[in-house]
């Protein structure tokens, strides 16, 4: 059964017509044209589809759009301020912290959430915060360095 569902995405109120059990990821990619969150597993186990929901990182592939209704969703596309990259995005570039980059957006989302709650994390805290994000290329050490670099640059203060 299709409903009109309102959800706030990257600061803008959007209305989509779909069944309430449609995964948020599917709505973001297919209805709203946002390609940053990516399909990896469909079960919330890999982090490729992570978005912020009311500031908390979570998988969008297994979150029904009905449950996201009325909440604030932020994707990687909503992090930059115009042409100015978010400090975490900039740090990922500075550290060249990606190979294929398929899961990079999900990792950036996790790191942004970490730095908002913990602006000066230890390396162990950074690793723990990213543990829900899988990487097959082996970019992990660079990603950790990027998170710590973003923290040093004040990345939690956005």
């Amino acid at each position: 059964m299709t409903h009109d569902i309102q959800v706030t995405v990257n600061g803008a109120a959007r209305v989509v017509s779909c069944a309430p059990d449609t995964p948020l990821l599917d709505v973001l990619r297919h209805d709203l044209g946002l390609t940053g969150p990516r399909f990896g597993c469909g079960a919330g186990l890999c982090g490729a589809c992570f978005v912020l929901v009311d500031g908390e990182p979570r998988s969008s592939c297994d979150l029904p759009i009905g449950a996201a209704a009325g909440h604030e969703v932020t994707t990687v596309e909503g992090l930059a301020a115009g042409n100015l990259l978010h400090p975490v995005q900039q740090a990922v570039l500075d550290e060249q912290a990606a190979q294929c980059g398929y899961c990079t957006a999900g990792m950036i989302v996790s790191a942004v959430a970490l730095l908002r709650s913990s602006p000066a994390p230890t390396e162990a805290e950074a690793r723990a915060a990213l543990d829900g994000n899988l990487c097959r290329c082996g970019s992990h050490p660079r990603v950790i360095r990027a998170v710590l670099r973003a923290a040093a640059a004040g990345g939690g203060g956005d």
Partner: protein
Amino acid sequence: MTDALPPALAANPHLADWLGFSASGVVTVRPGKVEYGQGLWTALAQIAAEELDVRLDQVRIAPVSTGASPDEGVTSGSRSIQDCGGALRWVCAQARAALLAAAAARLEAAPDALTVRAGDVHTADGATGLSYWSLGAAMRPALLARAAAPGAPAKPPGRWSVAGRSVPRIDLPDKVTGRPRFLADLMLPGMLFGRVVRPPAVGATLDSAPAPPPGLVAQVRDGSFLAVIAESDRVAVTAARRLARAARWTVRDTLPDERDLKGFLLAAPAQVQPVVARRDPAAAARVTRRLHAEFSRPFIAHASMAPSCAIARWDGDRVTVWSHSQGIFALRGALATGLGLDPARITVHYVEGAGVYGHNAADDAAADAVLLARAVPGRPVRVLWSREDELGWGPAGPAMLARLSAGLDAAGRIQTWRHDVWSNGFLGRPGTGGEPRLLALSHVAGGAPIPPALDGPPSGAMGATRNAVPGYHIPDLEVTRHRLLAMPIRTSSLRSLGAFLNVFAIESFMDELAAAAGADPLAFRLAHLTDPRARRVIGEAAALAGWASRSRAAGTGWGLGYARYKGQAGYGAAVAEVAADTAVSLRRLWLAVDVGRVINPDGVISQVEGGAIQSASWALREQVRFDRTRITSVTWDSYPILRFTEVPEVAVRIVAAPDEPEAGAGELAQGPVAAAIGNAVADAVGVRVRDLPLTTGQVTRAIEAG
């Protein structure tokens, strides 16, 4: 530099195959090798910028397509910088020489009085107003239509200013902002969405499928190939799930006993072939002590982060495919063979997917898409695999067994060495041996099972025998391949091919021999190595790690591993530090590599780091699980890979060798890292664990058997 044309250029000799100049100040470079996260296109842009004397940001890399790109074969084997980069270097050097000649004629100056800066021709007095861009149109027939000639004046590395330096990857800005870049991001007008309902087991056949539910564009059944097509992916997913529940299949036991992989490998029919047989009776007579050991690895999944995806459109007698295949030309050929089409009527466009580590399911997804597109002519159909199908139906890296024995003389030197390796083949890509080898074509009516993978000539090191021949000085040496002729679990190439297990086996065994000889593992290796580049990377890795002053604390172990990839490519040495009782925690890895001339040092380091971590994940965690009918490790819970909290710190040092040819960096870490970890575990727990992965269960079994 030799005067022979690089192979890729000899096959595609016209400069216009590779280069184009636009009046707007951009040079378009057209490689036949593809980018999948390894940083290739950045390195190619550096090579082009260097030889053309243009800025890096004046170089564009053209999309790769069978209709427009030179056929450079499959992007694999750590050969792209040598093959594609080598061709581009000659092409660009020749284009630059032609620009200077054309400019000299117009200016009535000597070519060697001219230089090129950012694409503009300069004299000692400054810019001349002539450039690639201004002369491009005039040059095209005169210059770019010509065939490459041997002897192009490429710059010596000592004069490089763009190549040889770390530069940021040209593809990463899109990837940190989420801009569409991947195949799954591509939305074509009028596109439909297909989902395939795979059989519930490897050898299952479809008995009956229900009628399609309303709301579908089409349901496709051909033999045991079953799929749905819908106007949206969400409708297709839902319909495919319903169909999977309602379809009736006959399931058969076709898979071996997972608990007895060695028994399966040893009992399966096999072709036995010598790889090396170098007998030295005098050396054999000096043996005073013999050691034997057996090492194994399970089937390993590619486990790329993105499930495979493809788009196809069938227009009349033309088929267009968008694929993240590593080998779009081979895919075109296999589709033509398998579907009885004229390859000239098929175009395959490459679009990036997630990371590629060998032959994954990309080609299979392309075949799915073509079969579905045939059912709805004129409209593009996208097929996206599920995570479960990706892990369950993509080709696996084969399980392997290596049985080693060696003889030491009284002085502790190796005199004899035997290495027998049992494995399915690694060559299972589309078109290998003239067979399509596409999953869906094995399920359609009349489709035959995919034949066992090939493995190349036994001495070619193209498959299971990659790095089976040790690089050490051993007088009496015999290496034998046992290629399995039955393939219950589909196998194909996975990063480093047989080198992962062979180097793990050889380097583990070297530590066992060193212990038997009462020697330090480092000194024992050096005593059997004469190649100065080999000795240097081992020494550098040991120095980087602080091997000589390593901790001897209880529960801590250190290990070393070395190999020259393929026996003839890049040199790699690794040191691992673990904390281990029965559970293994990998703390740190140090690597030194010599890959000859380096185009992008940070790119090399990134590839080596990534290879090291992936190898660690294989060595510590990974095994394809199965019962007698199907693969069961089809989620990230049942196929765990190393996570952020588990990955080690990794330090990489490049050992400079600017006068040596490029040797490839993508695969050389796999073997040495696995060996270093295995040796570190043995050092920590006092017992050798010879069967991968080094899980708590395997370590416990080894201790109990100890």
